[in-house]
């Protein structure tokens, strides 16, 4: 029998998109500006219905493109409103120049992002190329394994953004989560509203008694200092995220961290993964543990800021680590998460585990328990010295 963790929680069945729209209804931002795109369409479709039905008092701005969606969201935020948007894939790409403006102006915009492959060739299914491409945009990036996490992350994102003064995007995997109905515990509206609190910006453009300039030109005299401040803010956001997670746990009972360790502490071989495939991989870990194989897993929740020092401490005892990316940098070298993990391990000067890089699931290509088991099989062979760790990206379930 399913039990709630929070005493006033309620168990419901919802798809990822439905539950994100539900979180937005409870958050009830002042402004939502969005342009629909598969597979994130339902989020704004459902939310705009809430607006039309008078269920929320939010202003909904139906814009003509994602570039305008992000522009309007930024403008609303600068004016002093709590503002949100939702998008996916090509939509995020079209927002590109505005993403940097949201973070550069230190605006606490919150975006729900549904991970989908980028064109060309055109594809509507899941991979994380879209948000991985935006990893240097100065946005906090929080990834969700399932609908529950997407819901909880959305609620926490509002507080994180407003405390860190940085925009936050919360992702879930396209179709795999966005269109999958599963069990979610929701909290009462009142409790969610009280948790996020009222938005009181330090300063805002519509405060006519205290005028200030926003977005002025900034040349070689101060630009560098301002960019340094953004980098510092991103680093400091780790503590903000942990503090919000702590408050969230105290209130609703669910524990969140920068990343999740699954049977990792005594593991000899492990994979690092992000998103919905982490759940599938946990099944593989469980099966290996039943056979006495010391397998473990590290699931990244917060990808930006990257929790580098902490991750090193939790991986340093592992003999061989596989880093799995659902995005290919086309860099001629390695893919995003691997590069971050490798750099983090290398920077400490301690003896590192051997690490290998796998790319999987592009354009919605299936990744199942057997695929994950085959990676652990490879790691075992590397531990035994039967095989050498590959020094290039390996691909899973692709016809080469």
């Amino acid at each position, binding site marked *: 029998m*399913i039990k709630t963790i929070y005493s006033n929680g309620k168990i419901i*069945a919802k798809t990822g998109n439905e539950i994100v729209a539900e979180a937005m209804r409870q958050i009830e931002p002042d402004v939502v500006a969005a342009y629909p795109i598969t597979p994130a369409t339902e989020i704004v479709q459902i939310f705009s219905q809430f607006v039309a039905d008078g269920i929320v008092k939010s202003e909904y701005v139906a814009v003509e493109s994602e570039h305008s969606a992000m522009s309007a969201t930024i403008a609303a935020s600068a004016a002093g409103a709590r503002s949100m948007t939702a998008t996916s894939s090509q939509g995020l790409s079209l927002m590109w120049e505005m993403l940097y403006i949201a973070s550069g102006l230190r605006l606490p915009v919150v975006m729900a992002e549904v991970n989908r492959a980028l064109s060309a060739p055109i594809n509507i299914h899941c991979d994380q190329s879209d948000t991985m491409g935006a990893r240097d945009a100065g946005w906090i990036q929080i990834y969700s394994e399932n609908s529950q996490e997407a819901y909880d992350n959305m609620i926490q994102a509002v507080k994180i953004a407003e405390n860190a003064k940085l925009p936050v995007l919360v992702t879930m995997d396209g*179709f795999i989560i966005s*269109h999958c*109905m*599963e069990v979610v515990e929701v909290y009462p509206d009142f409790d969610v509203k009280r948790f996020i609190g009222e938005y009181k910006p330090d300063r805002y453009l519509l405060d006519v008694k205290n005028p200030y300039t926003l977005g002025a030109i900034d040349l070689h005299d101060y630009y560098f200092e301002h960019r340094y401040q953004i980098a510092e803010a991103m680093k400091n956001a780790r503590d903000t995220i942990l503090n919000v997670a702590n408050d969230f746990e105290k209130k609703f009972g669910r524990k969140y961290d920068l990343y999740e360790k699954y049977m990792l502490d005594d593991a000899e071989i492990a994979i690092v993964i992000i998103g919905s495939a982490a*759940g*599938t991989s946990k099944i593989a870990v469980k099966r290996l543990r039943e056979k006495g194989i010391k397998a473990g897993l590290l699931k990244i929740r917060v990808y930006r800021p990257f929790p580098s020092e902490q991750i090193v401490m939790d991986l340093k005892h592992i003999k061989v680590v596989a880093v799995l990316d659902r995005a290919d940098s086309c860099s001629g070298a390695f893919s995003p998460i691997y590069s971050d993990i490798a750099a983090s391990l290398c920077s400490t000067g301690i003896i590192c585990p051997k690490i290998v890089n796998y790319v999987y699931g592009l354009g919605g290509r*299936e990744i199942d328990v057997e695929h994950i088991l085959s990676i652990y099989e490879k790691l075992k062979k590397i531990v035994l010295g039967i095989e050498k760790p590959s020094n290039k990206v390996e691909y899973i379930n692709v016809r080469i």
Partner: protein
Amino acid sequence: MSKKMIEIRWHGRGGQGAKTAALLFAETILATGKYIQAFPEYGPERMGAPVQSFNRISEEPIMIHCGVVNPDYVVILDPSLMNSVSVTGGVNENGKIIVNTSFTSSDIAKKLGILVKQVHVVNASQIAIETIGRNIPNTPMLGALVKVIGTLDINEVLNNIKNKLTTKFRHKPDVIEGNISSIKRAFEEVVS
């Protein structure tokens, strides 16, 4: 995957409600206190094109997020799909197939090349026409599925579906009654 987990695959044609059936089934089963998943396979979104959707039911939280490979139950809404789609794909010898058809289970078993004991048949289209007034076989097939699974309480399922439909069709009480009796009839009429 724990042994207790039940996996179901629905085959239908675009517009027949394979996705709706999987979602409605999941919501209904959740109300009995079990963990559920329901998801469609997204392909060409055209009326009449073959589509699939899936369910998982478990006593424990469901962590897995990949496709259903070896379904315990396969529900076929449109019998013509047996000519063009591999409806028995991944089904092992304990797997069960429930078909909306007027043929007998031995006819179907012969056609699909599987054991007779694996096949269950019900004329869900006929039931739908007589109870709902239209050939929408997805709701009656829910009743057949509950019967074949055997561990679910039909009265509990009916109550939950009634609650669900009451919110959705509160202005159309006939729709609710028709759907409920279609489920009841398919539950009673499905045979192996």
